[in-house]
Protein backbone atom coordinates (compact mmCIF):
# COMPACT_ATOMS: atom_id res chain seq x y z
CA UNK A 1 0.00 0.00 0.00
CA UNK A 2 1.38 3.34 -0.97
CA UNK A 3 -0.18 6.61 -0.08
CA UNK A 4 0.06 9.31 -2.64
CA UNK A 5 0.46 12.17 -0.30
CA UNK A 6 2.16 12.06 3.03
CA UNK A 7 -0.62 11.26 5.48
CA UNK A 8 -0.75 13.41 8.52
CA UNK A 9 -2.14 11.50 11.48
CA UNK A 10 -5.74 12.26 12.28
CA UNK A 11 -5.02 14.24 15.36
CA UNK A 12 -7.62 16.65 16.62
CA UNK A 13 -5.06 19.41 17.05
CA UNK A 14 -4.26 19.30 13.36
CA UNK A 15 -4.33 22.53 11.46
CA UNK A 16 -5.34 21.75 7.88
CA UNK A 17 -3.15 24.56 6.58
CA UNK A 18 -0.12 22.54 7.64
CA UNK A 19 -1.01 19.91 5.14
CA UNK A 20 1.36 19.27 2.34
CA UNK A 21 0.36 21.29 -0.66
CA UNK A 22 -0.85 19.27 -3.57
CA UNK A 23 0.63 19.86 -6.98
CA UNK A 24 -0.85 18.03 -9.95
CA UNK A 25 0.88 17.15 -13.21
CA UNK A 26 -1.02 15.57 -16.07
CA UNK A 27 1.05 13.90 -18.79
CA UNK A 28 -0.42 12.93 -22.15
CA UNK A 29 -3.73 11.56 -20.90
CA UNK A 30 -5.91 9.68 -23.35
CA UNK A 31 -9.25 8.11 -22.48
CA UNK A 32 -11.52 5.74 -24.38
CA UNK A 33 -14.99 4.43 -23.72
CA UNK A 34 -15.00 1.32 -25.89
CA UNK A 35 -14.02 2.82 -29.28
CA UNK A 36 -14.94 6.38 -28.43
CA UNK A 37 -11.88 8.52 -27.83
CA UNK A 38 -13.20 10.84 -25.09
CA UNK A 39 -9.90 12.54 -24.26
CA UNK A 40 -7.22 12.88 -26.90
CA UNK A 41 -3.96 13.63 -25.15
CA UNK A 42 -3.92 16.32 -22.50
CA UNK A 43 -0.98 17.79 -20.62
CA UNK A 44 -1.59 20.14 -17.75
CA UNK A 45 -0.03 21.34 -14.50
CA UNK A 46 -2.16 22.54 -11.63
CA UNK A 47 -0.69 24.69 -8.90
CA UNK A 48 -1.38 24.15 -5.20
CA UNK A 49 -3.98 26.28 -3.43
CA UNK A 50 -5.56 27.62 -6.55
CA UNK A 51 -8.99 27.30 -8.07
CA UNK A 52 -8.88 25.93 -11.59
CA UNK A 53 -12.05 26.01 -13.68
CA UNK A 54 -12.73 23.54 -16.48
CA UNK A 55 -15.06 24.98 -19.09
CA UNK A 56 -16.34 23.72 -22.41
CA UNK A 57 -19.52 22.56 -24.14
CA UNK A 58 -21.32 19.40 -22.97
CA UNK A 59 -19.56 16.24 -24.05
CA UNK A 60 -16.15 17.88 -24.37
CA UNK A 61 -14.60 15.53 -21.83
CA UNK A 62 -14.19 17.92 -18.91
CA UNK A 63 -16.18 15.81 -16.44
CA UNK A 64 -14.43 12.63 -17.58
CA UNK A 65 -11.14 14.44 -17.12
CA UNK A 66 -12.10 15.65 -13.63
CA UNK A 67 -13.07 12.14 -12.57
CA UNK A 68 -9.62 10.87 -13.51
CA UNK A 69 -8.11 12.63 -10.51
CA UNK A 70 -9.91 10.50 -7.93
CA UNK A 71 -10.22 7.51 -10.23
CA UNK A 72 -14.02 7.53 -10.28
CA UNK A 73 -13.92 6.29 -13.88
CA UNK A 74 -12.51 2.99 -12.63
CA UNK A 75 -16.09 1.75 -12.22
CA UNK A 76 -17.07 2.40 -15.81
CA UNK A 77 -16.69 -0.94 -17.54
CA UNK A 78 -15.81 0.35 -21.00
CA UNK A 79 -13.25 2.82 -19.59
CA UNK A 80 -9.62 2.64 -20.74
CA UNK A 81 -6.84 5.20 -20.37
CA UNK A 82 -3.21 5.97 -21.14
CA UNK A 83 -0.87 8.52 -19.63
CA UNK A 84 0.07 9.69 -16.18
CA UNK A 85 -1.43 11.86 -13.50
CA UNK A 86 1.06 12.76 -10.81
CA UNK A 87 0.10 14.24 -7.48
CA UNK A 88 3.18 15.60 -5.77
CA UNK A 89 5.29 13.49 -8.07
CA UNK A 90 3.49 10.18 -7.53
CA UNK A 91 1.57 8.61 -10.38
CA UNK A 92 -1.91 7.87 -9.03
CA UNK A 93 -2.52 5.23 -11.69
CA UNK A 94 0.36 3.03 -10.56
CA UNK A 95 -0.75 -0.46 -9.60
CA UNK A 96 0.44 -0.10 -6.02
CA UNK A 97 -1.75 2.89 -5.32
CA UNK A 98 -4.55 2.29 -2.84
CA UNK A 99 -7.60 3.91 -4.39
CA UNK A 100 -9.40 4.34 -1.05
CA UNK A 101 -6.42 6.23 0.40
CA UNK A 102 -6.21 8.33 -2.74
CA UNK A 103 -9.85 9.40 -2.38
CA UNK A 104 -9.30 10.51 1.19
CA UNK A 105 -6.72 12.91 -0.21
CA UNK A 106 -8.74 13.97 -3.23
CA UNK A 107 -12.35 14.70 -2.32
CA UNK A 108 -15.24 15.26 -4.68
CA UNK A 109 -18.46 17.27 -4.73
CA UNK A 110 -21.05 16.23 -7.29
CA UNK A 111 -23.40 18.03 -9.62
CA UNK A 112 -26.59 17.09 -7.83
CA UNK A 113 -26.47 17.35 -4.04
CA UNK A 114 -26.26 13.72 -2.91
CA UNK A 115 -26.48 13.50 0.86
CA UNK A 116 -26.82 10.04 2.35
CA UNK A 117 -30.35 9.25 3.59
CA UNK A 118 -29.05 9.60 7.14
CA UNK A 119 -28.89 12.35 9.73
CA UNK A 120 -26.95 15.56 9.15
CA UNK A 121 -24.40 14.50 11.75
CA UNK A 122 -23.94 11.02 10.27
CA UNK A 123 -23.43 12.51 6.83
CA UNK A 124 -20.42 14.50 7.94
CA UNK A 125 -19.11 11.78 10.26
CA UNK A 126 -19.32 9.04 7.61
CA UNK A 127 -15.86 9.61 6.12
CA UNK A 128 -14.30 9.35 9.57
CA UNK A 129 -16.27 6.29 10.58
CA UNK A 130 -15.21 4.32 7.53
CA UNK A 131 -11.62 5.06 8.46
CA UNK A 132 -12.28 3.22 11.70
CA UNK A 133 -12.23 6.31 13.89
CA UNK A 134 -14.34 5.71 16.98
CA UNK A 135 -13.24 8.59 19.21
CA UNK A 136 -16.62 10.27 19.73
CA UNK A 137 -15.19 13.56 20.85
CA UNK A 138 -12.90 13.80 17.85
CA UNK A 139 -15.75 12.98 15.47
CA UNK A 140 -18.03 15.52 17.09
CA UNK A 141 -15.44 18.28 16.99
CA UNK A 142 -14.66 17.54 13.37
CA UNK A 143 -18.34 17.55 12.39
CA UNK A 144 -18.93 20.89 14.10
CA UNK A 145 -15.78 22.35 12.60
CA UNK A 146 -16.69 21.27 9.08
CA UNK A 147 -20.26 22.51 9.37
CA UNK A 148 -18.86 25.86 10.50
CA UNK A 149 -16.41 25.95 7.59
CA UNK A 150 -19.28 25.66 5.11
CA UNK A 151 -21.38 28.19 7.08
CA UNK A 152 -24.10 25.65 7.72
CA UNK A 153 -23.62 25.37 11.46
CA UNK A 154 -25.93 28.22 12.46
CA UNK A 155 -28.70 26.81 10.29
CA UNK A 156 -28.56 23.22 11.52
CA UNK A 157 -26.95 23.22 14.96
CA UNK A 158 -30.25 22.46 16.72
CA UNK A 159 -31.23 19.53 14.55
CA UNK A 160 -28.11 17.57 13.74
CA UNK A 161 -30.14 14.41 14.16
CA UNK A 162 -32.62 15.43 11.50
CA UNK A 163 -32.46 13.65 8.15
CA UNK A 164 -30.24 15.40 5.64
CA UNK A 165 -32.95 14.79 3.04
CA UNK A 166 -35.08 17.44 4.76
CA UNK A 167 -32.58 20.23 4.01
CA UNK A 168 -32.95 22.56 1.03
CA UNK A 169 -30.90 21.90 -2.11
CA UNK A 170 -28.39 24.61 -1.27
CA UNK A 171 -28.01 23.39 2.29
CA UNK A 172 -27.59 19.83 1.04
CA UNK A 173 -24.79 20.87 -1.29
CA UNK A 174 -22.98 22.70 1.51
CA UNK A 175 -23.46 19.60 3.66
CA UNK A 176 -21.86 17.54 0.90
CA UNK A 177 -18.90 19.93 0.91
CA UNK A 178 -18.65 19.66 4.72
CA UNK A 179 -18.70 15.87 4.38
CA UNK A 180 -15.80 16.10 1.94
CA UNK A 181 -13.82 18.44 4.20
CA UNK A 182 -14.23 16.09 7.17
CA UNK A 183 -11.75 13.58 5.75
CA UNK A 184 -9.25 16.41 5.28
CA UNK A 185 -8.39 16.12 1.62
CA UNK A 186 -5.76 18.34 0.02
CA UNK A 187 -7.54 18.52 -3.33
CA UNK A 188 -11.27 19.02 -3.88
CA UNK A 189 -12.88 18.21 -7.21
CA UNK A 190 -16.20 19.87 -7.96
CA UNK A 191 -18.38 18.73 -10.84
CA UNK A 192 -20.77 21.61 -11.60
CA UNK A 193 -21.54 22.01 -7.90
CA UNK A 194 -24.04 24.84 -8.34
CA UNK A 195 -25.88 23.79 -11.48
CA UNK A 196 -28.83 22.46 -9.45
CA UNK A 197 -28.98 25.43 -7.07
CA UNK A 198 -30.83 28.73 -6.97
CA UNK A 199 -28.87 32.00 -7.30
CA UNK A 200 -28.67 32.68 -3.56
CA UNK A 201 -27.41 29.19 -2.75
CA UNK A 202 -25.00 29.47 -5.68
CA UNK A 203 -23.59 32.71 -4.26
CA UNK A 204 -23.08 31.02 -0.89
CA UNK A 205 -21.26 28.07 -2.43
CA UNK A 206 -19.08 30.37 -4.54
CA UNK A 207 -18.15 32.38 -1.49
CA UNK A 208 -17.25 29.15 0.21
CA UNK A 209 -15.06 28.00 -2.67
CA UNK A 210 -13.22 31.29 -2.56
CA UNK A 211 -12.54 30.77 1.14
CA UNK A 212 -11.53 27.13 0.81
CA UNK A 213 -8.80 28.03 -1.66
CA UNK A 214 -6.55 29.03 1.25
CA UNK A 215 -6.33 25.44 2.39
CA UNK A 216 -7.17 23.30 -0.60
CA UNK A 217 -6.41 22.91 -4.26
CA UNK A 218 -9.75 23.14 -6.04
CA UNK A 219 -10.72 22.04 -9.52
CA UNK A 220 -14.21 22.97 -10.63
CA UNK A 221 -16.16 22.05 -13.72
CA UNK A 222 -18.69 24.69 -14.62
CA UNK A 223 -21.02 25.69 -17.42
CA UNK A 224 -21.40 29.13 -16.00
CA UNK A 225 -18.89 31.55 -17.53
CA UNK A 226 -19.50 34.25 -14.93
CA UNK A 227 -18.86 31.70 -12.23
CA UNK A 228 -15.57 30.63 -13.82
CA UNK A 229 -14.42 34.21 -14.12
CA UNK A 230 -15.56 35.11 -10.58
CA UNK A 231 -13.99 32.30 -8.59
CA UNK A 232 -11.13 30.74 -10.51
CA UNK A 233 -7.45 31.65 -10.78
CA UNK A 234 -6.86 29.47 -13.81
CA UNK A 235 -9.23 28.36 -16.54
CA UNK A 236 -8.96 25.47 -18.96
CA UNK A 237 -11.12 25.35 -22.06
CA UNK A 238 -11.89 21.89 -23.44
CA UNK A 239 -13.39 21.05 -26.79
CA UNK A 240 -13.99 17.60 -28.30
CA UNK A 241 -11.63 15.84 -25.93
CA UNK A 242 -8.81 18.30 -26.32
CA UNK A 243 -7.44 21.04 -24.11
CA UNK A 244 -7.75 24.07 -26.36
CA UNK A 245 -6.43 26.71 -24.04
CA UNK A 246 -5.25 26.88 -20.45
CA UNK A 247 -4.01 29.87 -18.54
CA UNK A 248 -4.78 32.58 -16.01
CA UNK A 249 -8.50 33.20 -15.84
CA UNK A 250 -8.04 36.90 -16.47
CA UNK A 251 -6.13 36.25 -19.66
CA UNK A 252 -8.55 33.60 -20.90
CA UNK A 253 -11.53 35.86 -20.38
CA UNK A 254 -10.06 39.13 -21.60
CA UNK A 255 -7.49 38.14 -24.15
CA UNK A 256 -7.71 34.52 -25.25
CA UNK A 257 -5.14 33.23 -27.71
CA UNK A 258 -7.46 30.97 -29.65
CA UNK A 259 -10.49 32.01 -31.65
CA UNK A 260 -12.42 28.92 -30.42
CA UNK A 261 -12.00 29.98 -26.81
CA UNK A 262 -13.23 33.46 -27.53
CA UNK A 263 -16.23 32.12 -29.43
CA UNK A 264 -17.20 29.86 -26.56
CA UNK A 265 -16.72 32.44 -23.83
CA UNK A 266 -18.69 35.05 -25.67
CA UNK A 267 -21.48 32.56 -26.25
CA UNK A 268 -21.14 32.26 -29.98
CA UNK A 269 -21.25 28.46 -29.75
CA UNK A 270 -21.54 25.73 -27.14
Amino acid at each position, binding site marked *: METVIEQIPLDKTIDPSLKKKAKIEVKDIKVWYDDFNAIKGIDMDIKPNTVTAFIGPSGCGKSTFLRLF*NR*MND*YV*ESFRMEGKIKVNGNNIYKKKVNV*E*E*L*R*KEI*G*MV*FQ*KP*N*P*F*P*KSIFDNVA*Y*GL*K*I*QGITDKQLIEERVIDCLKQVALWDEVKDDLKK*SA*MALSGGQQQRL*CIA*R*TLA*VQPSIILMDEPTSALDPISTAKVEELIFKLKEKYTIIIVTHNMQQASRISDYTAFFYLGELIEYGKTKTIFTNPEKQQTENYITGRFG
Partner: protein
Amino acid sequence: MNNIQKNRLKDQIFKIWGIGCTLFALILLVFFIGDILIDGIMRIDWGFITDLPSRKAEKSGIYTALMGSIWILLLTTAIAFPVGVAAGVYLEEYSNKNKLSAILEINISNLAGVPSIIYGLLGLEVFVRIMGLGASVLAGSLTLSLLILPIIIVATREAIKAVPKSIKDASFALGASKWQTIWNQVLPASSGGILTGVILALSRAVGETAPLIVVGALAYVPFAPESPMDEFSVLPIQIFNWISRPQHGFIENAAAAIIILLLITFIMNGIAVYFRNKWQRKLN
Protein backbone atom coordinates in the same frame (compact mmCIF):
# COMPACT_ATOMS: atom_id res chain seq x y z
CA MET B 1 -71.18 10.69 -32.71
CA ASN B 2 -67.90 12.48 -33.28
CA ASN B 3 -64.40 11.28 -32.41
CA ILE B 4 -64.22 12.84 -28.99
CA GLN B 5 -67.51 11.27 -27.95
CA LYS B 6 -66.32 7.90 -29.29
CA ASN B 7 -63.15 8.12 -27.25
CA ARG B 8 -65.10 9.09 -24.14
CA LEU B 9 -67.37 6.11 -24.64
CA LYS B 10 -64.38 3.77 -25.00
CA ASP B 11 -62.96 5.29 -21.86
CA GLN B 12 -66.20 4.63 -19.99
CA ILE B 13 -66.51 1.07 -21.27
CA PHE B 14 -62.99 0.22 -20.22
CA LYS B 15 -63.53 1.80 -16.81
CA ILE B 16 -66.65 -0.26 -16.18
CA TRP B 17 -64.94 -3.41 -17.42
CA GLY B 18 -62.02 -2.73 -15.06
CA ILE B 19 -64.31 -2.18 -12.09
CA GLY B 20 -66.10 -5.41 -12.96
CA CYS B 21 -62.88 -7.42 -13.05
CA THR B 22 -61.68 -5.99 -9.76
CA LEU B 23 -65.03 -6.68 -8.12
CA PHE B 24 -65.06 -10.24 -9.47
CA ALA B 25 -61.77 -11.02 -7.74
CA LEU B 26 -62.79 -9.21 -4.56
CA ILE B 27 -66.21 -10.84 -4.36
CA LEU B 28 -64.70 -14.30 -4.73
CA LEU B 29 -62.25 -13.51 -1.93
CA VAL B 30 -64.97 -12.10 0.32
CA PHE B 31 -67.20 -15.09 -0.40
CA PHE B 32 -64.37 -17.50 0.39
CA ILE B 33 -63.35 -15.74 3.60
CA GLY B 34 -66.98 -15.38 4.66
CA ASP B 35 -67.64 -19.07 4.08
CA ILE B 36 -64.56 -20.03 6.08
CA LEU B 37 -65.46 -17.62 8.89
CA ILE B 38 -69.01 -19.01 9.15
CA ASP B 39 -67.67 -22.57 9.29
CA GLY B 40 -64.75 -22.03 11.58
CA ILE B 41 -64.88 -18.89 13.72
CA MET B 42 -66.96 -20.51 16.49
CA ARG B 43 -64.44 -23.31 16.75
CA ILE B 44 -61.49 -21.06 17.61
CA ASP B 45 -60.70 -20.82 21.29
CA TRP B 46 -57.57 -21.07 23.35
CA GLY B 47 -57.92 -24.83 23.55
CA PHE B 48 -57.97 -25.16 19.78
CA ILE B 49 -54.58 -23.55 19.65
CA THR B 50 -52.99 -25.39 22.56
CA ASP B 51 -54.48 -28.88 22.14
CA LEU B 52 -52.65 -31.79 20.57
CA PRO B 53 -54.27 -33.60 17.64
CA SER B 54 -56.82 -36.23 18.51
CA ARG B 55 -59.12 -38.76 16.87
CA LYS B 56 -62.09 -36.79 18.15
CA ALA B 57 -62.72 -33.58 16.25
CA GLU B 58 -63.86 -31.53 19.24
CA LYS B 59 -60.76 -32.45 21.24
CA SER B 60 -58.36 -31.83 18.39
CA GLY B 61 -56.13 -28.77 18.34
CA ILE B 62 -53.53 -27.33 16.02
CA TYR B 63 -50.71 -27.07 18.57
CA THR B 64 -48.26 -29.46 16.87
CA ALA B 65 -48.98 -28.14 13.39
CA LEU B 66 -48.74 -24.51 14.52
CA MET B 67 -45.45 -25.19 16.30
CA GLY B 68 -44.25 -27.07 13.22
CA SER B 69 -45.11 -24.09 11.04
CA ILE B 70 -43.32 -21.71 13.40
CA TRP B 71 -40.23 -23.93 13.48
CA ILE B 72 -40.24 -24.17 9.68
CA LEU B 73 -40.70 -20.42 9.40
CA LEU B 74 -37.81 -19.60 11.74
CA LEU B 75 -35.39 -22.11 10.27
CA THR B 76 -36.29 -21.17 6.70
CA THR B 77 -35.71 -17.51 7.54
CA ALA B 78 -32.35 -18.34 9.12
CA ILE B 79 -31.25 -20.24 6.01
CA ALA B 80 -32.84 -18.36 3.12
CA PHE B 81 -32.39 -14.77 4.34
CA PRO B 82 -28.58 -14.61 4.55
CA VAL B 83 -28.02 -16.83 1.52
CA GLY B 84 -30.55 -15.04 -0.69
CA VAL B 85 -29.45 -11.52 0.26
CA ALA B 86 -25.77 -12.40 -0.17
CA ALA B 87 -26.45 -13.90 -3.59
CA GLY B 88 -28.47 -10.83 -4.59
CA VAL B 89 -25.70 -8.47 -3.45
CA TYR B 90 -23.11 -10.50 -5.31
CA LEU B 91 -25.07 -10.58 -8.55
CA GLU B 92 -25.89 -6.88 -8.42
CA GLU B 93 -22.66 -5.40 -7.08
CA TYR B 94 -19.78 -7.77 -7.71
CA SER B 95 -20.36 -10.08 -10.67
CA ASN B 96 -19.05 -8.92 -14.03
CA LYS B 97 -21.68 -8.33 -16.62
CA ASN B 98 -20.81 -11.11 -19.05
CA LYS B 99 -22.50 -14.08 -20.71
CA LEU B 100 -22.23 -16.25 -17.60
CA SER B 101 -24.00 -13.69 -15.42
CA ALA B 102 -26.70 -13.29 -18.08
CA ILE B 103 -27.30 -17.05 -18.01
CA LEU B 104 -27.35 -17.01 -14.20
CA GLU B 105 -29.86 -14.17 -14.23
CA ILE B 106 -32.27 -15.92 -16.61
CA ASN B 107 -32.05 -19.15 -14.66
CA ILE B 108 -32.78 -17.52 -11.33
CA SER B 109 -35.95 -16.09 -12.82
CA ASN B 110 -36.74 -19.53 -14.23
CA LEU B 111 -36.21 -21.14 -10.83
CA ALA B 112 -38.88 -18.87 -9.38
CA GLY B 113 -41.33 -20.52 -11.78
CA VAL B 114 -40.48 -24.16 -11.08
CA PRO B 115 -43.46 -26.03 -9.53
CA SER B 116 -42.99 -26.46 -5.81
CA ILE B 117 -43.40 -30.24 -5.95
CA ILE B 118 -40.17 -30.44 -7.98
CA TYR B 119 -38.39 -28.73 -5.09
CA GLY B 120 -39.95 -31.35 -2.83
CA LEU B 121 -38.44 -34.13 -4.93
CA LEU B 122 -35.07 -32.40 -4.91
CA GLY B 123 -35.28 -32.01 -1.11
CA LEU B 124 -36.27 -35.66 -0.71
CA GLU B 125 -33.25 -36.83 -2.68
CA VAL B 126 -30.62 -34.38 -1.42
CA PHE B 127 -31.58 -33.54 2.15
CA VAL B 128 -33.60 -36.55 3.29
CA ARG B 129 -31.69 -39.34 1.58
CA ILE B 130 -28.16 -38.23 0.61
CA MET B 131 -27.55 -35.97 3.60
CA GLY B 132 -29.50 -38.36 5.79
CA LEU B 133 -31.54 -35.71 7.58
CA GLY B 134 -34.71 -37.79 7.45
CA ALA B 135 -38.18 -36.29 7.47
CA SER B 136 -37.03 -33.57 9.86
CA VAL B 137 -37.84 -29.90 10.37
CA LEU B 138 -34.35 -29.14 9.02
CA ALA B 139 -34.91 -31.08 5.79
CA GLY B 140 -38.26 -29.32 5.34
CA SER B 141 -36.73 -25.89 5.99
CA LEU B 142 -33.86 -26.49 3.58
CA THR B 143 -36.35 -27.54 0.91
CA LEU B 144 -38.53 -24.48 1.43
CA SER B 145 -35.40 -22.30 1.47
CA LEU B 146 -34.55 -23.52 -2.02
CA LEU B 147 -38.09 -22.76 -3.07
CA ILE B 148 -38.05 -19.14 -1.91
CA LEU B 149 -34.38 -18.30 -2.64
CA PRO B 150 -35.10 -17.11 -6.19
CA ILE B 151 -37.82 -14.77 -4.89
CA ILE B 152 -35.48 -13.32 -2.25
CA ILE B 153 -32.61 -12.95 -4.72
CA VAL B 154 -34.78 -11.15 -7.27
CA ALA B 155 -36.29 -8.88 -4.58
CA THR B 156 -32.82 -8.06 -3.20
CA ARG B 157 -31.52 -7.17 -6.64
CA GLU B 158 -34.49 -4.95 -7.40
CA ALA B 159 -34.14 -3.17 -4.06
CA ILE B 160 -30.41 -2.61 -4.61
CA LYS B 161 -30.99 -1.38 -8.14
CA ALA B 162 -33.35 1.26 -6.74
CA VAL B 163 -30.57 2.80 -4.59
CA PRO B 164 -29.48 5.97 -6.43
CA LYS B 165 -26.02 5.70 -7.95
CA SER B 166 -25.24 9.13 -6.54
CA ILE B 167 -25.24 7.68 -3.02
CA LYS B 168 -22.71 5.05 -3.98
CA ASP B 169 -20.58 7.66 -5.79
CA ALA B 170 -20.58 9.84 -2.69
CA SER B 171 -19.46 6.96 -0.52
CA PHE B 172 -16.67 5.90 -2.88
CA ALA B 173 -15.52 9.50 -3.25
CA LEU B 174 -15.02 9.68 0.52
CA GLY B 175 -12.63 6.75 0.39
CA ALA B 176 -15.02 3.95 1.30
CA SER B 177 -14.25 0.49 -0.03
CA LYS B 178 -16.82 -1.47 -1.96
CA TRP B 179 -17.82 -3.50 1.05
CA GLN B 180 -18.06 -0.39 3.30
CA THR B 181 -20.28 1.23 0.70
CA ILE B 182 -22.53 -1.81 0.45
CA TRP B 183 -22.75 -2.30 4.21
CA ASN B 184 -23.16 1.35 5.25
CA GLN B 185 -25.12 2.80 2.35
CA VAL B 186 -26.54 0.30 -0.12
CA LEU B 187 -27.98 -2.23 2.34
CA PRO B 188 -29.57 0.30 4.73
CA ALA B 189 -31.07 2.19 1.79
CA SER B 190 -32.44 -1.01 0.27
CA SER B 191 -33.37 -2.76 3.52
CA GLY B 192 -37.06 -1.93 3.21
CA GLY B 193 -37.30 -3.47 -0.24
CA ILE B 194 -35.28 -6.50 0.79
CA LEU B 195 -37.39 -7.07 3.90
CA THR B 196 -40.58 -6.76 1.90
CA GLY B 197 -39.37 -9.41 -0.52
CA VAL B 198 -38.19 -11.71 2.25
CA ILE B 199 -41.47 -11.46 4.17
CA LEU B 200 -43.58 -12.05 1.07
CA ALA B 201 -41.42 -15.07 0.20
CA LEU B 202 -41.79 -16.41 3.75
CA SER B 203 -45.53 -15.95 3.72
CA ARG B 204 -45.52 -18.09 0.60
CA ALA B 205 -43.38 -20.70 2.38
CA VAL B 206 -45.84 -20.84 5.31
CA GLY B 207 -48.63 -21.87 2.96
CA GLU B 208 -46.65 -24.51 1.03
CA THR B 209 -47.88 -28.07 1.33
CA ALA B 210 -46.74 -30.17 -1.62
CA PRO B 211 -42.96 -30.07 -1.16
CA LEU B 212 -43.28 -30.82 2.55
CA ILE B 213 -45.50 -33.82 1.92
CA VAL B 214 -42.89 -35.14 -0.52
CA VAL B 215 -40.11 -34.54 1.99
CA GLY B 216 -42.11 -36.58 4.48
CA ALA B 217 -43.89 -34.21 6.83
CA LEU B 218 -46.55 -36.15 8.68
CA ALA B 219 -50.25 -35.51 8.93
CA TYR B 220 -50.29 -36.77 12.48
CA VAL B 221 -47.49 -35.93 14.91
CA PRO B 222 -48.17 -36.50 18.59
CA PHE B 223 -45.70 -33.88 19.84
CA ALA B 224 -44.47 -30.47 18.76
CA PRO B 225 -40.89 -30.51 17.42
CA GLU B 226 -38.22 -29.68 19.97
CA SER B 227 -35.16 -29.68 17.76
CA PRO B 228 -34.41 -29.22 14.04
CA MET B 229 -34.05 -33.00 13.70
CA ASP B 230 -37.56 -33.83 14.92
CA GLU B 231 -40.47 -34.96 12.81
CA PHE B 232 -43.06 -32.32 12.14
CA SER B 233 -46.35 -31.33 10.63
CA VAL B 234 -47.42 -27.89 9.42
CA LEU B 235 -50.75 -26.07 9.27
CA PRO B 236 -51.49 -26.62 5.56
CA ILE B 237 -50.91 -30.37 5.95
CA GLN B 238 -53.10 -30.47 9.03
CA ILE B 239 -55.83 -28.64 7.11
CA PHE B 240 -55.47 -31.00 4.15
CA ASN B 241 -55.71 -33.96 6.48
CA TRP B 242 -58.80 -32.69 8.28
CA ILE B 243 -60.65 -31.81 5.10
CA SER B 244 -60.25 -35.36 3.81
CA ARG B 245 -62.01 -36.78 6.94
CA PRO B 246 -65.72 -37.64 6.62
CA GLN B 247 -66.89 -36.34 10.04
CA HIS B 248 -68.39 -32.84 10.05
CA GLY B 249 -66.41 -31.81 13.15
CA PHE B 250 -63.16 -32.03 11.27
CA ILE B 251 -64.47 -29.76 8.50
CA GLU B 252 -65.12 -27.18 11.21
CA ASN B 253 -61.58 -27.73 12.49
CA ALA B 254 -60.15 -27.28 9.01
CA ALA B 255 -62.01 -23.99 8.57
CA ALA B 256 -60.74 -22.78 11.93
CA ALA B 257 -57.16 -23.74 11.05
CA ILE B 258 -57.51 -21.94 7.71
CA ILE B 259 -58.52 -18.79 9.60
CA ILE B 260 -55.37 -19.05 11.73
CA LEU B 261 -53.18 -19.64 8.65
CA LEU B 262 -54.78 -16.72 6.80
CA LEU B 263 -54.25 -14.54 9.85
CA ILE B 264 -50.53 -15.39 9.89
CA THR B 265 -50.20 -14.63 6.16
CA PHE B 266 -52.14 -11.37 6.42
CA ILE B 267 -50.05 -10.21 9.36
CA MET B 268 -46.84 -10.99 7.47
CA ASN B 269 -48.06 -9.19 4.36
CA GLY B 270 -49.10 -6.26 6.52
CA ILE B 271 -45.61 -6.02 7.96
CA ALA B 272 -44.20 -6.16 4.42
CA VAL B 273 -46.41 -3.27 3.30
CA TYR B 274 -45.40 -1.27 6.36
CA PHE B 275 -41.70 -1.70 5.59
CA ARG B 276 -42.21 -0.81 1.96
CA ASN B 277 -43.98 2.45 2.79
CA LYS B 278 -41.40 3.39 5.39
CA TRP B 279 -38.59 2.67 2.95
CA GLN B 280 -40.11 4.74 0.16
CA ARG B 281 -40.49 7.70 2.48
CA LYS B 282 -36.86 7.44 3.52
CA LEU B 283 -35.40 7.46 0.03
CA ASN B 284 -37.45 10.39 -1.26
